[in-house]
């Protein structure tokens, strides 16, 4: 079964994000990620994460696919216009990549390459529409394709946003635009997911974002530099004045993952900013 079939069959899925390397040596990227093979259901490959120059998501996804890991190719609207995005989508499919996670992307000045021109020719909703257009056999200019792709399209949402109602409307809009599954920003509080389910129903496939905190620096970095992240006080307090941050981080993640699975509110968990070896450690404790 592939990722789409597993998700649609109602299985609790596990995904994780990895970033392609900064440089042309791809060996450790692949070997590090290979330990997730057959343990998790798909691996997201980020698209110039944090506005940094890296190997592209397309090539990163292809490298994983070649080695038997099912990728979720991420594409944002920040660095490419509608021509480039359409081309990347076709290229991905031609290489055998079916899963696509569509994002608008963080603004250039919130990341590393602050001097770069932000593109934002499209937004996530319109990338989804363009992908759907390709599936129906035409590009956005109306030119016919010699063969059309068939993607499994996903989008993101951020349960930390206030007011949550806007975010819920956006979920609905992204579904109208073609999204079939959702991966979320970090979730710590399951009651938020309860509210989301009340509004969007049980059918929609939602994979909740979790992370394994490694250090105080990582926590601080996330709070200060990653847009849209909110870490509740009671989580931060667990780490205060402690020096075994990593083991507390693992414990916290194990606890949250098992609660998520039990709650039946989400269709899976998505490990964000976590080392593959740490993910395996968490999964071993959970006997997943």
């Amino acid at each position, binding site marked *: 079964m592939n990722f789409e079939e597993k998700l649609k069959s109602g299985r609790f899925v596990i995904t994780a994000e990895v970033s392609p390397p900064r440089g042309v040596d791809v060996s450790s990227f692949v070997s590090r990620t290979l330990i997730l093979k057959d343990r998790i259901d798909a691996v997201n490959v980020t698209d110039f994460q944090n506005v940094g120059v890296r190997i592209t998501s397309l090539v990163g996804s292809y490298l994983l696919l070649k080695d038997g890991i099912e990728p979720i190719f991420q594409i944002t*609207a920040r660095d490419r216009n*509608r021509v480039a995005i359409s081309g990347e989508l076709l290229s991905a499919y031609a290489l055998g990549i079916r899963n696509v996670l569509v994002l*608008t992307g*963080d*603004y250039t*000045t*919130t990341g590393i390459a602050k001097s770069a021109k*932000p593109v*934002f*020719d*499209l*937004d*996530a*909703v*319109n990338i989804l*529409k363009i992908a759907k257009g390709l599936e129906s056999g035409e590009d*956005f200019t109306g030119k016919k394709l010699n063969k059309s792709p068939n993607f499994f399209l996903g989008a*993101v*949402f*951020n349960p930390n*946003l*206030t*007011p949550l*109602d*806007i*975010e819920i*409307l*956006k979920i*609905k*809009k992204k579904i*109208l*635009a073609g999204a079939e599954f959702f991966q979320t*920003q970090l979730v710590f509080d399951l009651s938020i997911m309860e509210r989301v389910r009340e509004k969007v129903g049980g059918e929609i496939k939602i994979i909740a974002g979790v992370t394994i905190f490694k250090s105080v620096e990582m926590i601080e970095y996330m709070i200060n530099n990653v*847009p*849209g992240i*909110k870490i509740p006080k009671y989580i931060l307090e667990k780490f205060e004045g402690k020096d075994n941050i990593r083991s507390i981080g693992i414990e916290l993640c194990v606890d949250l993952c098992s609660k998520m699975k039990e709650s039946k509110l989400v269709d899976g968990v998505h490990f964000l900013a976590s080392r593959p070896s740490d993910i395996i450690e968490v999964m071993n404790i959970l006997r997943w």
Partner: protein
Amino acid sequence: MRIEIKKIEEIKNLISGKKIFIFSCDNCGFESFEKKNKEVFFYLAELKTEIVGIYNLTMDKCNVGSLKKIIDEIEDDINRADNILTFTCGGLPQILPNYIKKPVIPATNTLKIEPGRSLGSFARLCSACGECWIYYTGNLCMEKLCPKKMRNGPCGGAEDGICEVYERLCPWVILFRTNRISEEDFLKIIPPKDFSKILLQE
């Protein structure tokens, strides 16, 4: 300032009644009222609507203080109208909904605002993007207010309503807090912008 009137088909889909009140201006002194309004009335004849009134806004009155007084003066006409149509730049139709609780529809695309020339104060609210689309977004201009120019909702980066780029309220949050956009309108998918319009301006 260079402005073009929108295609009839575009406006037809937006107006919700027969009775129309018009705001016109002299393009910050770049056009005569006579010439501009001739064009406006020609256009409206084709639209087959009943005009209940027109106000010609001059540059010295293009500010909040004057506008409040003007609206008091023309209140009766406005009350009779189903829709307000603006033949100005994209600034005025962003301000009017604060004072008039009827659909305010920009009937123009603002193509160019020359820097260094004196302008009415509402012109500052418009970036002259060539394809005015504020009617999709509760009459707030995302070209001006949103760094990513989001067409289909906020990007998800705002924290407690504050934009991820600048220390100010995300305009999408303002839209929802002030009920300037209905759920039904929000769920309509707005297609990508047509950049050829503005790119072909000299």
